[in-house]
Each structure stands twice: as C-alpha cells, then as structure tokens.
C-alpha cells in the first residue's frame, strides 16, 4: 500500500477559501509583528534554552494561533509553517557551519535538515498563495557552536511536538489532520533521537513520560519570541 500525502487532498485554495480573513503574503513583517513573534530581545546561551524549554506543567488550554496567522485551518497551517521555517533555517545554518559533531550527530543533522526542509516545502505548497513568507532569523551562534546546536535542537524538536499536538485537535479538515499528525510523529522521532544523543541515560527520549504534552499557540509563540531567533 503506497502512501503519500496527497497535495490535491491537502490543498490550497479550496480549504483556504474558508478564510474570509486573509493573510496576504506581502506583509511579512507586520504579519509577524501581529503574531507577536518578531523583534524579541536577543538572548543567548541558557536563556534561549530556558525560554523554549517545555514547562513541566501541561498546557492550560487548547489555544489556537492568533488570527493574524489566518483563519481556521489556514491559520494553523501557517503557524506550523512558521515553526518549520525556523527549524529548517536553524538546521541549514548548522549544516553550512560544518560543526565538529560525532558521527551520530552528523547523521541526525542530515536527517533533520532534509525532513524540516521537506515540511516547509509541503506546507508552503499546501497553503499556496496564503503561505506566510519566511521570517528573517538570527540564531546568535546557537547553530554554529556544536554544543549549543545539540541542546537547542533538542528543545526545538520537543517544541515542535508540543506545538503540533496542541493544534491537531483544532484542525477541521481530515486531510490536514492526517498531514499534521504525519509531521508531528516525525518531530517526535527527531526529538527522541537528539534526546538520547544528548543524554545517554535515556531520560530525554520521552521527557514527558508516557504521554506527550500539547501546548497552546500562545505558549509556543511566547517561547519562540523569547529566543529572539526571529528578527523580522
């Protein structure tokens, strides 16, 4: 049984038609400002990690992304796209930096770089003209230093899991649910692998234990803003 996410199914302007409130592609900066994730104060080192690190407590609600991302499912897909842009740019930068990584970490970087860029391409295509444009990023050395890279990657991947699982239940269209969960599971796989690489005790394979924790968009966006990685 061959399976692939069908872009005709997960398409563009038909579901996007439901979006009365359009997010037009040419207002990237104001879009991000509206979303509240541009222009965060620069942070570095541990501050970045603590800003993104998942709280021990479960999310307090099932908050959707702010309407500036678009209405309904479009908003959720654009929220996901923005997070995927961030991950892809982070890994693309790390790849370009030729970091001195262990062979296992090199394999990890290769896999995640490929996967996250594929997620970006998929979501952009699915959203078509409604796709949010790529923000400008400044990772402040977090992807050009091997140790910081490994730690930050773990936080980013777990944040991806929290973010997708927070929104999957808010998605209306079945085809989008399939696509989102199909991506969610990949983020979880990445997270476990980098968790084990960073902590051979295995404690970070599934840091939330038997059940992964969903986060509201507000919580994820506040964390992303806190990193200062998105600068415009």
């Amino acid at each position: 049984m061959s399976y692939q996410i069908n872009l005709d199914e997960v398409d563009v302007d038909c579901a996007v038609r439901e979006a009365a409130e359009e997010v037009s592609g040419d207002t990237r900066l104001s879009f991000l400002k509206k979303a509240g994730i541009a222009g965060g104060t620069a942070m570095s080192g541990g501050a970045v990690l603590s800003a993104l690190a998942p709280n021990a407590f479960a999310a307090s609600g099932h908050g959707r992304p702010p309407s500036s991302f678009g209405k309904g499912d479009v908003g959720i897909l654009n929220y996901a796209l923005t997070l995927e842009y961030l991950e892809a740019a982070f890994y693309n930068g790390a790849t370009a930096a030729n970091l001195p990584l262990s062979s296992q970490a090199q394999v990890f970087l290769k896999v995640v770089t490929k996967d996250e860029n594929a997620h970006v391409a998929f979501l952009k295509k699915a959203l078509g003209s409604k796709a949010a444009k790529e923000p400008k990023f400044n990772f402040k050395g977090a992807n050009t230093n091997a140790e910081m890279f490994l730690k930050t990657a773990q936080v980013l991947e777990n944040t991806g899991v929290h973010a997708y699982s927070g929104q999957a239940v808010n998605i209306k269209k079945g085809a989008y649910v399939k696509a989102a969960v199909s991506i969610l599971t990949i983020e979880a796989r990445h997270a476990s692998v980098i968790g084990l690489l960073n902590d051979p005790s295995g404690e970070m394979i599934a840091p939330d234990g038997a059940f992964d924790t969903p986060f509201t968009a507000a919580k994820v966006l506040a964390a992303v803003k806190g990193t200062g990685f998105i600068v415009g």
Partner: protein
Amino acid sequence: MSSPPSEQSEQPVPQPAGIVERLVRDDSDRKKFLKMAGAAAGTSFGAFVLAACGSSSKSSSSSSATGTAATASTSTSSSKEMGDLAIVNYALTLEYLETEFYAKVVASGLFNGKVGSLIKDFGRQEQTHVEALKGTAEKLGGTPAAKPEGKFPIQSASQVAQLAYTVENLGASAYLGQAASIQSPEVLAAALAIHTVEARHAATLGTLVKKPVTPNGAFAKPADMPTVLAAVKPFLA
C-alpha cells in the same frame, strides 16, 4: 515585552494530558464525554480484533480472517461508523501486545545496562497506555477489549531489538492511520499523546539497531487496520 500575543484566543477545550488522567481516574465528566463521543458503538472491539486475526480458530481461520479484514477495510475508510470506541479498543489491543512483548523481553534477561533500562522504561510506558486506553473505553460507555494472549519469538538481543523496532513502528503507524477518523477531540488528543511516544520509542530503537529513525522520510506513513492486523497476527497465541 515577552508577553504572549494579546489577540490569542484561548479555546475552552480541555487539555489532553489531563483528559487521559481524568479518564483513568475520575467519573465526574463521564456524561459530557459520552455526549462528545457521540454514537460510539457499544460493542466490544476486542472480539472483532481477535476474530480478524483468526487467533482462536484453527481450520477456517484464514478465509474468515480475510473476509473480516475486508470488512474492516471498508469501514476504516468511512470509520465514523466504527466509532471512537472501536478505535480505542483497537489501540488497546495493540498496547496490550506491546506491554506483554516488553515484559517477556525483560524476563528474558537478554538486555542489561542502559539498553535494559530503556526496554524497561518503554514497557512501563506501554503499560501506562493500556491503563489510559482502558479508562478511555469505559468513559466512552464501552467495554475495554480483553487482553489478548501474545507469543513472541525471543531468541537473541539483536533479533529482539529488531523486532521491537518493527513493533513500535507498527504501533506508530497504526495510531497515525486512525487519527483522522477519531471524532472526539478528547479521544484524538489522548491518542496523539500516546502516538508520539510510540514514535519516540521507534526512533530510539532505530538508533540501537542502526536502522532509519524516520523510515518513511519526512512524513510518517499510516497503516490501516487490515494492514496492522495482518502484521500483528503472528504475535497472537
């Protein structure tokens, strides 16, 4: 400065981790939950799973199994008919088998040290999934599927690790195959909270057996019910 976006609209939907706990421990919102679960079928799906796998009948099992699987295939594509309860009991059956598998692996003593402790952790998490899904089935007003009897080839560490990788990947793809069919947001949230942990196990085992951690690339591949049941069949006693 770092306050959340002001236009954030918080939906008053309960959060999944809490749902799982509540489902396991508490009866208070049973009524509301049942209302959301809608027309969940009241039948025990465990019997169906076992019948589909042909586990008990010896002579005519293959033809009846095929027939049942074909029926399952049809209803999977429009699984509103199947209902959330059937999906929960399907997941429960798989989690039972995973739990038993890990218990037998631990008992085999094939793994020590770090890997042994990972295997124990994974087994405990599968047991927790079993408890959560049993509670979910009851909250849906149904009878939790009965625990099936498993049989697993346990020969060597490398063979078992490989089998664990296969089993976890199957589990992850089984959840993924049902995600879009689940009607209740609560049940979906609970299923996803479990599903990603299956994926974490699968990827971790991939690193141990030097197999791809994302065997289907950037998008995980779902498996429908007949496919999963056929794959599970050899592990039913």
